[in-house]
């Protein structure tokens, strides 16, 4: 899909500039733009390093575990088919907590572990269970408390208020998660009843 979009952008640019008689415009535009690509990446390094350093401290302080304990009631509510205290529940909790803290690189291994555990409870391994669908509805719409990468990018671009978007982002991401989880609930019946990992 990205292949199609990227190719489309480049090809259409050529056609439009050729048709309007100033074909060299795209060469100039491309060369000026790519220079700032590297500049952006470099001004991004300091803030990103600072944030990742802080997050490593958070991880070692056990903040993910702390958060998972607090989230347990939510998980009980969302995943009634997963027995409490199972490895599946634990991995899902760690994944969701890491996502909440914006620790994408820590969230993925926990998430894959959760999928592996959920698959063990799956009577039909080729088809997703209810729990898997709910888990991925939450993951694909990810609630993040601090959108660190966006903040760093804003700062790198000289923003006078890089963290101003924390509030708007929280509202938007709550919308997406509520919608995805609700849609998951409503659509569940259509794909085949009772495909839960409850047995």
């Amino acid at each position, binding site marked *: 899909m*990205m292949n199609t979009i990227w190719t489309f*952008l*480049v090809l*259409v*640019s*050529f056609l*439009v*500039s050729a048709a*309007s008689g100033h074909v060299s*415009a795209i060469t100039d*535009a*491309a060369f000026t*733009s790519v220079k*700032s*690509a590297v500049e*952006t990446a470099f001004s991004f390094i300091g803030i990103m*390093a*600072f944030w*990742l*350093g*802080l997050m490593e401290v*958070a991880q*070692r*302080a*056990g903040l993910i575990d702390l958060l998972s304990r607090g989230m347990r009631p939510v998980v009980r509510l969302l995943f009634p088919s997963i027995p409490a205290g199972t490895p599946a529940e634990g991995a899902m909790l760690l994944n969701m907590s890491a996502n909440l803290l914006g620790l994408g690189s820590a969230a993925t291994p926990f*998430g*894959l572990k959760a*999928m592996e555990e959920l698959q063990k409870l799956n009577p039909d391994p080729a*088809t*997703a269970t209810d729990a*898997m*669908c709910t888990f*991925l509805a939450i993951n*694909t*719409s*990810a609630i993040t*408390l601090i*959108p660190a990468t966006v903040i760093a*990018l*804003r700062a790198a*671009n000289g923003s*006078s208020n890089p*963290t*101003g978007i924390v509030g*708007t*982002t*929280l509202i*938007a*991401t709550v*919308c*997406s*998660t509520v*919608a*995805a989880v609700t*849609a*998951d609930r409503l659509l569940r019946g*259509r*794909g*085949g009843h009772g*495909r839960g990992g409850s047995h």
Partner: protein
Amino acid sequence: MAEVIDAASRWAMPLMFFLIPLVAYLRGVKVYEAFIEGAEQGFATAVRMIPFLVAIFAAMGMFRGSGAMDLLMRLVAAPARWLGVPPEVLPLMLVRPLSGSAALGMLSDLLRVYGPDSYLGWLGSTIQGSTDTTFYILSVYYGSVGVRNPRHSVLAGIIGDLAGFAGAVLATRLLFPH
């Protein structure tokens, strides 16, 4: 309400700067060493972004420079306005569910051209954080365990993305400082 959210925006990060080292220190973590080890990854992360930024910046730069962007804007302006969405953020919305790095490139391009503190800059930043890379996550997570029938996951994911975008438009309209 707006004041509360604004205060949350201002306090979220400083509070983390305070709480994380404090809790870590009290729990006996070697705070300084942990920080250094984490920070080491910052360079790699930024360098890994470069090819994505170059690809997106080049394509978007050409698209704008050629006049194709103006053409597209004129084409979609009316329906986009009707939905309350500035047409400039449509490419970002299109790419967001497909590739996290490409979306980050699109956002960076948007911030560079329109400014991070402009309305478009705020909206773009909010869109980027409103949802995750739906299609990428679905393929990696289901792929890892060999699930071939994702049932309604794709539809639920897309509904989540659209709701996130709508939420981003509304929240920015509500809270953007004039």
